[in-house]
């Protein structure tokens, strides 16, 4: 029984930190509808700032507990102000942009904060020196339990109570709750949204900063804190119900206890466990434990999805020319250029497959890398266990990914909006965790090596032609789907589910079919990539990989079929190629993302199309 009690207490103290972060995220989402990726970065900044501020206080007045408390609070306030600065300079300009653009913009901030932190505090982990009162233990049921962890366990419920008072006993809190339900009505009643949003950002960011500062004594400040916590915080927010603080509290208890016991009882699947819990909760309660169906945001005036039309002939000719130039590369370019061209072909198909879901399908996948990775692993596992040759492996890749596309898709297509995006993220994390932790089968972190093409395609030039044939062929096939009756039905289901069903379309099935096709296409891209690299790794399925795909599609423009192709080439060719050469490439990339989101809310191709049509006197859609 002692073991149960101790693990339970450990879970409680972890739950507190998780709740602080998740409550900030959920409050921000509730009012502003922004899914703030940078929230994990605020948590990380909280830890680093506390490291600096608490030590400065201690240098001045000795290692006193009250100075620790003051330092932690000061760090939280500073992080809150940084959050306000981000809201006022960046987010305020894009509240009306599509939600994925907002998400990408905040991801740009993640990258910038990573490099800023690296520049200011350096790459080393920074532990806080622990005076005796921070190291003390308490006897509980015959076991020693860290006193600080016990205090942490109490802080969670205390903060919940304070937040409850804030939301029910102050005008600010009442306005926040009202705005969570209907911010347009709040504005029509004379409340300035800008101030309200800034206030909410201060509160939410300060909570994240407080969480980061409070975990500093038990973990040191490090540069991996941001992305490692953000996935968990998303899970907690989604499981609790987006916008619900009490839900976030219950969910953080659930998740932290599952982790605390899972790490002892099921150590092999700890990473998967959290996401399995989330997937299970969302299947039973699609809006989380205490969430409500999101009020269907009435389309703001003018926000009608533009019609998807075939590109003008001249673009087709340009595409053909580009293809010919790429195919003739072996005759004029070096080995490195050929490698880059193979990658480009792969990413064009990868981006096009995501576009099928996001554009015509209206299904925003936040974990598209899963299917890319499943394709790559399908080929590699086929080689390892069935000794499949490359030809069979390239058939197995899309089938393997498509199969999982159907399995995951069954659950995904029932949801919509942010919940859907988060469930796709959860499935991607499950796949990632499986490849990472299931070492016996997948080789874990070391991946699977020796995935080489057959002898006839071993030459780089031949493989380039093969990659072009498969990837460009696949992309053209996807385009064919978009302009087929299937594609029309899919778009009808996206634009008005009820009307589409009323004329006899099975919308869930259409979406599932699109999901499976997109997964299979991404799988083919993954398979081609695996043989090009000769190896597969879990990083193929990581969050940044999914973000890569989103960036390609969104930068290119989701409203055109050409968009993702342009986006893939622009992103992979320019940003990765040029920016990675600089020391602070993350900050440069982040800045580029932010600038692009601000400058081209329709994407590059959408922008170009508008200009083109305006110049020719056609009416923009």
């Amino acid at each position, binding site marked *: 029984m002692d073991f149960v009690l101790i693990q339970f207490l450990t879970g409680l103290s972890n739950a507190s930190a998780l709740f602080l972060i998740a409550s900030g995220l959920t409050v921000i989402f509730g009012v502003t509808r922004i899914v703030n990726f940078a929230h994990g970065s605020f948590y990380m900044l909280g830890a680093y700032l506390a490291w600096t501020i608490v030590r400065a206080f201690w240098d001045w007045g000795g290692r006193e507990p009250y100075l620790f408390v003051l330092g932690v609070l000061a760090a939280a306030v500073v992080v809150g102000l940084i959050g306000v600065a981000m809201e006022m300079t960046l987010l305020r300009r894009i509240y009306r942009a599509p939600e994925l653009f907002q998400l990408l913009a905040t991801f740009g901030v993640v990258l910038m904060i990573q490099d800023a932190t690296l520049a200011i505090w350096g790459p080393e982990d920074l532990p806080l020196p622990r005076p005796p009162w921070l190291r003390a233990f308490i006897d509980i049921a015959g076991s020693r339990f860290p006193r600080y962890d016990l205090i942490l366990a109490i802080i969670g419920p205390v903060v919940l109570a304070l937040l409850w008072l804030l939301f029910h006993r102050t005008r600010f809190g009442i306005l926040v709750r009202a705005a969570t339900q209907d911010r347009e009505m709040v504005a029509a*009643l004379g409340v300035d949204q800008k101030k309200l949003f800034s206030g909410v950002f201060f509160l939410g960011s300060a909570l994240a900063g407080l969480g980061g500062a409070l975990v500093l004594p038990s973990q040191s400040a490090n540069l991996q804190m941001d992305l490692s916590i953000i996935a968990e915080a998303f899970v907690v927010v989604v499981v609790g119900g987006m916008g619900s603080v009490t839900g976030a509290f219950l969910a953080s208890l659930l998740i932290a206890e599952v982790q605390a016991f899972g790490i002892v009882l099921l150590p092999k699947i700890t990473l998967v466990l959290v996401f399995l819990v989330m997937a299970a909760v969302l299947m039973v309660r699609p809006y989380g434990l205490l969430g409500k169906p999101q009020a269907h945001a009435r389309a703001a005036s003018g926000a009608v999805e533009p019609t998807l039309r075939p590109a003008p002939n001249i673009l087709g000719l340009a595409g053909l020319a580009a293809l010919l130039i790429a195919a003739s590369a072996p005759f004029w370019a070096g080995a490195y250029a050929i490698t880059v061209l193979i990658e480009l072909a792969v990413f064009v198909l990868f981006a096009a497959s995501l576009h099928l879901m996001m554009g015509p399908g209206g299904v925003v996948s936040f974990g598209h890398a899963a299917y890319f990775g499943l394709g790559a692993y399908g080929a590699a596992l086929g080689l390892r266990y069935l000794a499949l040759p490359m030809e069979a492996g390239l058939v197995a890749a899309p089938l393997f990914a498509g199969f999982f596309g159907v399995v995951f898709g069954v659950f995904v297509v029932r949801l919509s909006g942010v919940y859907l995006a988060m469930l796709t993220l959860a499935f991607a994390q499950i796949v990632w965790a499986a490849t990472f932790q299931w070492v016996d089968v997948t080789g874990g972190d070391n991946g699977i090596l020796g995935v080489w093409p057959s002898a006839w395609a071993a030459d780089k030039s031949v493989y380039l032609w093969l990659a072009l044939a498969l990837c460009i062929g696949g992309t053209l096939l996807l385009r064919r789907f978009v302009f087929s009756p299937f594609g029309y039905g899919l778009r009808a289901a996206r634009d008005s589910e009820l009307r589409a069903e009323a004329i006899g379309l099975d919308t869930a099935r259409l979406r599932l079919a699109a999901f499976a096709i997109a997964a299979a296409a991404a799988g083919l891209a993954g398979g081609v990539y695996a043989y090009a690299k000769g190896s597969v790794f879990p990083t193929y399925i990581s969050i940044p990989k999914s973000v890569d795909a989103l960036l390609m599609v969104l930068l290119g423009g989701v409203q055109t079929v050409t968009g993702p192709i342009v986006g893939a080439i622009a992103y992979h060719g320019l940003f990765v190629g040029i920016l990675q050469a600089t020391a602070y490439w993350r900050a440069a990339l982040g800045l580029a993302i932010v600038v692009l989101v601000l400058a081209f809310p329709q994407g590059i191709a959408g922008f170009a199309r508008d200009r083109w049509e305006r110049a020719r006197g056609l009416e923009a859609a």
Partner: protein
Amino acid sequence: MLSVSRLNAFYGRAHILHDVSLEAASGEVLVLLGRNGAGKSTTMKSIIGIVRPGAGSSVTFAGAEMAGRPPHEIARAGLGYVPEERRIFTDLTVMENLEVGRQAPREGLAPWTPERLFAIFPNLGRMRDRPGGRMSGGEQQMLTIARTLMGNPRLILLDEPSEGLAPVIVEEMANAIRQLKQEGLAVVLSEQNLHFAARVADRAVIIEKGTVRWQGTLATLEDEPEVKAQYLSV
């Protein structure tokens, strides 16, 4: 007090309002009459700024130009808006809903307090701590008006206040509107129900297909059966 001239509004590329012009004097009850989809709600939403008026539109209120300003500034200038869908905050109690609407007192007007409002809407006073989501349609309708009054408006826009209410409640609503007029408020309401309009309003503006077709006092309208037949009968 309120002067709307050449108001145009668009949803996407659909042109909804065509050069709508109307006036409402202080202490007057003006009714916008018209069938479903005639443009009454859009007129109100454009006045309060939820729908952005097209170029060239002018909405002056108490001498200041409102067109193009954000809704919260227009509301703070003393223009209250009560939407057709009521849009009560269902998680908030009656008192909390009123708090969201509260604004600073306005010069020359006795400030509204929950107690004064409960004198007009006695039902609300008996359910101060009830969440908005657990109230009947009629109670919600009273609450949405009371909530807007907490902002101490000089003029209140009421979008179809009698819609979907039981006859007894409609009677209460008519009394409430007459009381607001007595308090010195200007009221602009939209209606499809001519009988209700005739009991509360001084003047009428008839809108059809986003265009003003007729205006005059309700007494005059009684003598023009062909106008009624053309624009109002179903």
